[in-house]
């Protein structure tokens, strides 16, 4: 148990190291170019320290508790002996992998809810929209998008269809949705594609992709194991645009419109 605390110190040092370039850039520009005193400097520095400590605890906790088990699980669920039992793996069809789809969907949803960068964007969107965009509404919409995206990405690895078919049709779909979506949400929806996949999601999803590509006959882990992150970045755009359209439509049936409320601000 003790080693967890020792590792924690190392993780915090690593995090400080990662953050160093950012801090240098910020303070370099602040003191050399802008040359203005920062208001509440003490508070901001405390905030940075909290962020570093927080990320250290967060990463060490994930590495100690959830990642090993989650990765092992991803490999076990994609293991030929689990999926096929005594049958031949080559005889399996895509629907025989149902537990893998369910796991992909569930883990995609669950990791997205815990993703700190999405939480940050949701908090900001809530502030900027004066509460019109709820933090939970946005996060759940994004999480559903990631869940569907990863489940579909797993389907692609199993069937071996080319990645770009899905991504390009996804693009077309997003563009059509953009035409009909409320203007307020478009930029936020595009952003939500990029924030979903970081600290929590990537390691677990990567293990799932590589494990699966190693199991399914004819797949090469090096080539087919990729692509899940791309799905997880594309589908939240659709689900957030969809969520906005749905709430606009609901609001139009009531009298108060979300967009009106924002423009009054």
């Amino acid at each position: 148990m003790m080693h967890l605390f020792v590792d924690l110190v190392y993780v915090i040092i690593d995090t400080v190291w990662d953050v160093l370039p950012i801090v240098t850039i910020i303070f370099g520009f602040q003191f050399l170019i802008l040359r203005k005193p920062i208001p509440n400097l003490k508070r901001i520095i405390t905030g940075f320290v909290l962020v570093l400590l927080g990320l250290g605890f967060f990463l060490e906790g994930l590495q100690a508790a959830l990642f090993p088990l989650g990765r092992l699980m991803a490999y076990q669920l994609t293991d030929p002996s689990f999926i096929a039992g005594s049958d031949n793996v080559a005889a399996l069809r895509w629907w025989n992998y149902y537990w893998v789809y369910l796991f992909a969907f569930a883990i995609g949803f669950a990791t997205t809810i815990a993703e700190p960068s999405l939480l940050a964007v949701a908090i900001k969107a809530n502030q900027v929209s004066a509460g019109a965009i709820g933090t939970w509404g946005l996060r759940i919409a994004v999480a559903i998008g990631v869940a569907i995206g990863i489940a579909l990405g797993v389907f692609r690895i199993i069937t071996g269809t080319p990645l770009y078919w899905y991504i390009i049709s996804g693009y077309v779909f997003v563009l059509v949705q953009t035409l009909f979506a409320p203007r307020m949400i478009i930029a936020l929806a595009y952003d939500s594609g990029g924030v979903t996949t970081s600290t929590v999601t990537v390691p677990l999803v990567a293990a799932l992709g590589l494990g699966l590509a190693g199991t399914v006959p004819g797949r090469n882990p090096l080539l087919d194991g990729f692509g899940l992150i791309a799905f997880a970045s594309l589908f939240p755009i659709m689900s957030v645009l969809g969520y906005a359209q749905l709430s606009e439509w609901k609001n139009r049936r009531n009298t108060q419109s979300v967009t009106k409320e924002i423009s009054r601000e």
Partner: protein
Amino acid sequence: MNPLKAIWAALFDSLRDLLPIIVVIAFFQLAVLQQPIPNFSEITVGILFVVIGLTLFVQGLNMGLFPIGETMAYSFASKGNLFWLLCFAFALGFGTTIAEPALIAVAEEAALVAATGGMIANNEQSMESYAQGLRYTVAISVGIAIVIGVFRIIKGWPIQYLIVIGYIGVVIMTVFAPAEIIGIAYDSGGVTTSTITVPLVTALGVGLASSIKGRNPMVDGFGLIAFASLTPMIFVMGYGMLV
């Protein structure tokens, strides 16, 4: 509210954010794979760490990252020097990406793919220089993305026009890029934006949009991350074609 109560409430929020993962992993371990949970006490401490970490992170976000991003946005806007603002945008994008651990992992993976596929010589040295080149490529592309994104906020262009151009760029590059690189290129878009970059960049965008007259923080302030996830795909495929 008294401080102790506030801390409890914040910890409880973090626990709630984490609950879905705990439920999913416990369900698959106990019900589907039908195995006991190993190292139960270690896992409990780990979960406690995650909860504490998330709570501290959210506190620090509101005290440190958001205010500094916004303060700098206001200062740049009031100073009115576009050149330095764009320099800052590039530095922020490049500097936060080059050190990103997820990107380092993906670059090494990509070098392995390239070596296995015979695109580069299969030895340590050429793989390392390939991975390094890829990291710089992605970091430069994110720097450019933030520059374009900041410029868009200042001009108030609708984001979808630029995104359409980006999508067309991705599709064109996909046609010409070697098949081995496509999966990695598409994934590289998702891994570039780290947990510290996102709040900073978001605060910068929203801060700029609120301090420039005629811009709406909701319509114009977001979107920087979107560019940062799009340009790496184009640049990585370009890298795959050239190297």
